[in-house]
């Protein structure tokens, strides 16, 4: 017997058709008073949460039901779990897209239940929620807004790290109804709230509260369409207005003629509104057309099933009937729609997806199959995929599972999330079957299974670990870390350690190892991962926890760990660094810290003290580098003392303090304190060469030509005479520079010739050339010469030129 035609439950509203699909029957017991419960259903055919409405009286049945609880059911009425409730008055009950149940209590506490079985994470709304109390909440797919009794609004836009935020302050007054537009549908990409206050409506976001200046309030209902484009308002005089969500356009008005406002106003699709009273339902379609029903039909479905439809798809479906009857009309039909056959097949495939009834699904697919058998070139991918999807949908829609998800919803939810939901319901077998069928990884399912096993099993640790490892053998992506975490949470730390050793990702093991106080292993694993961030974290944790000595011992044979401790200590904890170097017996490094500190001192005396301390640290050391360091530190202190005296005796302020030895000597000579300079040279054992350089540069800077000339009379200079020539020439005194040219006997004649030229002394250069009998150079010089020099050079040239 063929079930009723899908048309049977259609209803026409305006130009469109609407249908009501009955999925499960007799879900709850007959005496179950649904009207006495607050109900919230998770999106995509997910679970339903029920909580007895405290404001309504209910029949006392037994102690169990009298106890306050939140019951989570599947859509088919199967109790999934029961959460005992003793946390006070519930002001918000809602679901996220990930099927997490959110419960908001009057005091502003939010409990986020994940996994459907009572595990939860709480957070507080803050922002005055505790004082004023939460009055109501509105949810969207990934967040919610709470309305406080003082009309303040608090939004939470995501749950992973909730940041409750106060929205703009809204005016005082009686809130008669409210609603929100989810962030995905607003221009600003943040949530907007529509608050009906007194006679008007305010649109409120994070920064503004905008009055829409309406007069027909108080509005008993404000309802936003699923895409956030339209808003339905129920006016004080019983009319329904449909306006754009920015309140710029009014699209339709419908007079309900009812004296009492409806219990609820909901949108059905994006183009019709349902008003529900206790005993009556009105449906307002586009432009005010009305009917009483639900569920918009899809275009494809309409195309196939609409009465008298002559669309190719409809004809194709008819052909299947003809085929069953073995009628030749089947072929006639096909010929008739030949032109559009490919399209008809597509439509039949799609329509099958939108049908809930397997009978019609099969019919439509059969029609598609028949159609495509006639087509020469047709990709069957869509067809095959659709059969796959329908099999999955059929499996989860079964009342045992109770997830009446539509095709569109399934597409948006994704198979992975569907599997996740099955896992949360502990439907492991079906989850694995579906995963394998759709070729998606089943590892998460195994992990969930194993974690659950750990929670409920009473077997001993070894046996349980063996069982789990055996079962999960050959599955490389398994996160043993998560399983181990569950074991640890159950207080089975031995089992946790065992399980953790099977985790392939070193980094993943670290946090759990730390909480299990397996410090050494945690540090090793962190180092193994190569992630310095992880290492830092372990180190910070351990430093806080362990006595310093044990902490240092732990890191002593781990160079990277020690290096990171040193690096972070250098920026904030110098004392720690000193202790570390002391414990590690690194006096040189310890001494260097004191040297750094000496540099930071302001007073000379304290600088010197620190330097002595630094030197003292090295007093037991025999290492040549340490000895050198020790000597240098003493020299540094000594130099500071000398400079302090200089500053006092010959300078106005701190001129010398802190300079290098060379610079001190240089400045002394430049200021004419040659004797003092010499004394420092002796005391600090500055080499003759260095001293001469300092003297030369200082005298040149001082332009003390006399002293320089005097110096030139000495027989030998440890740095030679060329530097004298260069520096003095650089200072512009060619005459004095030239004095040093003949003294540069170590240089080749050519260099000296060049030096003479630079002083502008062509004749001298010529003489040099003559001495080495360099005729070429002489000729070049002649070109450069002028005045008397010309004849001089000429004379030299003739002198050299061989007589003919």
């Amino acid at each position, binding site marked *: 017997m063929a079930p009723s035609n899908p048309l049977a439950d259609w209803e026409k509203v305006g130009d469109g058709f609407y249908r009501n699909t009955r999925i499960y029957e007799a879900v709850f017991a007959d005496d179950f008073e649904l009207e006495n419960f607050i109900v919230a259903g998770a999106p995509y055919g997910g679970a339903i949460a029920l909580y007895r409405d405290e404001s309504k009286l209910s029949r006392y049945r037994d102690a169990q039901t009298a106890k306050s609880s939140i019951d989570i059911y599947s859509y088919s009425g199967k109790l999934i779990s029961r959460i005992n409730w003793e946390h006070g008055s519930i002001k918000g009950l809602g679901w996220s897209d990930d099927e997490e149940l959110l419960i908001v209590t009057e005091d502003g506490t939010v409990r986020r239940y994940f996994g459907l079985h009572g595990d939860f994470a709480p957070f507080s709304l803050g922002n005055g929620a505790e004082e004023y109390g939460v009055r109501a909440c509105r949810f969207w797919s990934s967040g919610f807004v709470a309305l406080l009794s003082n009309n303040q609004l608090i939004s939470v836009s995501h749950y992973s790290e909730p940041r409750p935020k106060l929205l703009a302050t809204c005016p005082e007054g009686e809130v008669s109804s409210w609603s929100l537009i989810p962030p995905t549908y607003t221009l600003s990409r943040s949530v907007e709230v529509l608050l009906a206050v007194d006679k008007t409506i305010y649109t409120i976001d994070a920064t503004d509260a905008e009055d829409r200046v309406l007069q027909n309030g108080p509005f008993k209902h404000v309802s936003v369409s699923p895409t956030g484009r339209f808003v339905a308002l129920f006016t004080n005089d019983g009319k329904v207005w449909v306006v754009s969500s920015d309140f710029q356009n009014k699209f339709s008005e419908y007079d309900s003629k009812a004296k009492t406002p409806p219990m609820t106003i909901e949108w059905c699709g994006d183009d019709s509104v349902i008003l529900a009273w206790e005993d009556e339902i009105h449906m307002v379609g586009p432009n005010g057309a009305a009917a009483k029903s639900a569920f918009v039909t899809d275009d494809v479905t309409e195309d196939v099933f609409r009465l008298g439809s002559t669309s190719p798809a409809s004809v194709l479906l008819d052909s299947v009937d003809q085929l069953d009857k073995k009628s030749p009309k089947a072929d006639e039909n096909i010929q008739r729609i030949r032109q559009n056959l490919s399209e008809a097949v597509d439509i039949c495939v799609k329509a099958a997806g939108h049908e809930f009834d397997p009978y019609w699904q099969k019919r439509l697919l059969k029609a598609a199959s028949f159609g495509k058998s006639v087509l020469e070139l047709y990709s069957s991918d869509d067809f095959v995929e659709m059969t796959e999807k329908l099999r999955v949908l059929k499996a989860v829609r079964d009342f045992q599972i109770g997830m009446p998800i539509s095709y569109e919803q399934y597409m948006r939810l994704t198979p992975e999330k569907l599997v996740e939901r099955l896992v949360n319901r502990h439907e492991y077998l079906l989850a694995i079957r579906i995963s394998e069928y759709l070729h998606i990884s089943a590892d998460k399912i195994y992990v969930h299974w194993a974690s659950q096993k750990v929670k409920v099993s009473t077997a001993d640790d070894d046996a349980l670990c063996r069982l789990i490892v055996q079962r999960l053998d050959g599955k490389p992506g*398994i*996160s043993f870390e998560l399983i181990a975490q569950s074991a640890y949470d159950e207080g089975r730390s031995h089992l946790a350690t065992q399980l953790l050793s099977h985790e392939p990702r070193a980094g993943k093991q670290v946090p759990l190892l730390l909480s299990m106080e397996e410090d050494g292993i945690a540090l090793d694993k962190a180092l193994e991962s190569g992630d310095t*961030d992880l290492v830092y974290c372990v180190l910070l944790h351990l430093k806080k926890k362990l006595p310093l000595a044990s902490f240092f011992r732990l890191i002593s044979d781990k160079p990277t760990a020690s290096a990171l401790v040193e690096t972070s200590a250098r920026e904030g904890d110098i004392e720690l660094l000193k202790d570390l170097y002391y414990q590690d017996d690194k006096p040189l490094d310890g001494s260097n810290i004191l040297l750094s500190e000496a540099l930071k001192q302001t007073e000379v005396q304290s600088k010197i003290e620190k330097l002595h301390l630094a030197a003292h640290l090295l007093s037991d050391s025999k290492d040549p580098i340490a000895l050198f360091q020790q000597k240098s530190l003493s020299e540094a202190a000594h130099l500071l003392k000398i400079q302090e005296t200089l500053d006092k005796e010959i300078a106005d302020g701190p001129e010398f303090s802190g300079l290098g030895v060379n610079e001190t000597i240089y400045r002394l000579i430049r200021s004419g304190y040659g004797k003092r300079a010499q004394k420092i040279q002796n005391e600090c054992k500055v080499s003759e060469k260095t001293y001469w*350089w300092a003297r030369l540069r200082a005298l040149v800077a001082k332009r003390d030509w006399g002293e320089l000339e005097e110096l030139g009379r000495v027989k030998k200079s440890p740095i030679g005479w060329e530097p004298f020539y260069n520096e003095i020439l650089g200072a512009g005194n060619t005459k004095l520079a030239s004095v040093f040219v003949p003294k540069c006997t170590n240089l080749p004649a050519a260099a000296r010739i060049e030096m003479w030229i630079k002083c502008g002394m062509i004749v001298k250069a010529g003489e040099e050339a003559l001495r080495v009998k360099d005729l070429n150079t002489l000729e070049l010089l002649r070109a450069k010469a002028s005045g008397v020099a010309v004849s001089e050079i000429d004379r030299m040239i003739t002198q050299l030129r061989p007589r003919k």
Partner: protein
Amino acid sequence: MAPRLGSEADHIRDKARRDLLTLLEGVRGKKNLVISKDLAGPVGLFVKFSVLQEYGVDRIFLLENANVDSTQRNVIFLVHAEKVHQIGTTAEQVKRLQENGTVEHDFYIFWVPRRTLLSNKILEDTGIIGDVNIAEFPLYFCPLEQDVLSLELEDSFGDLYLHKDPGCILLAAKALMQIQQRHGYFPRIVGKGDNARRLADLLLRMRKELEAEELSGLDDSVGGLLLPSLAIESLIIIDREVDFATVLLTQLTYEGLIDEFVGIKNNQADVDSTIVGAAVPPQASQGSSSTPQSASKPALKRKIQLDASDQIFSQLRDANFAIVGELLNKVARRLESDYESRHSAKTTLELREFVNKLPAYQLEHQSLKVHTNLAEDIMRQTRSDVFRKILEVQQNYAAGSDPTYQHDTIEELIARDVPLKNVLRLLCLESCMFGGLRPRELENFKRQILQAYGYQHLLTLRALEKMELLQPRSSTGPVVLPGGGASVGIKTNYNYLRKNLRLVVEEVSEKEPKDISYVYSGFAPLSVRLVQCVLQKPYILSLTKGGPTPPTVNTVSAASPGWLGFEDIVKSARGSTFSIVQKGDEKAARARQTLSGSGGVKTVYIFFLGGITFTEIAALRFIARQEAPQRKVVICTTGITSGGKMIEAAMEKGSFAKAA
């Protein structure tokens, strides 16, 4: 899917820009942006200030200046989350704004390149983690050019070799993983040096973890298993510590010399406006657009953009400085004749054509002027007595002559008070090339340095020693011999490699270079020679064994991959030597091979861990040009470095004179 060649840099640039702008878009309304110094430059590489403004950024502040004004409700921090002190500074500033501000703030922190546990911990300890919105800005590689991808980690050299902090290796691995995830696995990873090995190990580990995650479907974004890439030939990793000496030499290419004398950061150089003239308005707004307002800076410097967008610079950058003058003259003559062509323009059409080209001429003319002035200034500096002495010492070291002959010169430089950086560079060069200095001589130099530059440099010297840049020669003799002995590879044996890889090339033509040694006027950087051992085996063989140079450098590496043929020689360079083949599922790989064939130009990624110099980039580009028909070369690095920057990492900045 064969990704378009040469698009890696573009891809990374686009992605970085998109990521950042999406994050900014997520913050409603006007906002102030606080950015850390080390990020301001890199961000400027892919997004202009004007664009940030379009996305609501009102003002930009540097984190280090701690001067955020509190007028704006939205405050965004863009900061590295890997460093303790930067996280700490960020936390402090958030707290300060909370306490002082009259305006209630919404705080956003975009951690670069990832949100770390450390950052969570610090924010938690400061008590503000609940008050800030946290997001990640996954910026790893910043493309400097089409062929240069840099992590632009300024401190990476000091971190790696002084503080022994391997953080940048992880970031390098993550950056390379992104390339692998886009193109498939590097079919082969060849490398030299212990840190290089560490990087390769991390890559292997990450691949394993990624595969595990793909198998388990934890990562939804990646469909199917990755295979060895068909578009990539290999990844070559060179650890900087294999060849410190090259960096210590003075760079002699044009771009290298600019870096030596002026400094180039994120493709920009701050040049004295007395040299290149004051900034011209249009160019200034282009060049400095992305840099935050720093009005306090005296206007004596002008930012010069140094990248491929400047055509003249592109022609000059990799040339030896000796021929830059000539090249500039050529450009000048061409420009002039182009300009003169206006006289020959007869018809109105020709005239219009000329007018259309005019802006381009003017731009080129601008650039010509800048580079002529800059080159002249560099020329002046290279002529100085001190510079020539330094160069001479370097060239002698590079050639391997007895280092003690240079000591008098170095002592003279110290006595003449030339900047300490230059002195240390020479001493470190000697230490690196000859396995340390004799203890007595080293001590002597140290004493002279302390007396000349101050005793605070005890710290500098100690740091250099820790970095193994300046060390006493061990008593067991200079350096190990190749091919045997237990201590092989402890230090790079330049003496041996100089001969066996022909590092010194006497007959070098700067004008028409035949070998990479042109970049140092006769010295081939060891780091790049090592790359040639992988990519240009026949050439290196002909170079070292004598015999004819092969007319074209043909690809033999496919037949003899990795270090094959050079294993023994390469052993005398410091650290681990490795060549790893990354295999995929054989069947799948073969199936794909038959489907798409194996032909086509393949890319070689060359990663310089710890930094690369402009000179080495020039040398690698030289190789890339020779290999052009068969291969493409992409250079990757943790950052651009130079001898000066290397020494800078060790240098103690404090002194006894200035009280802190």
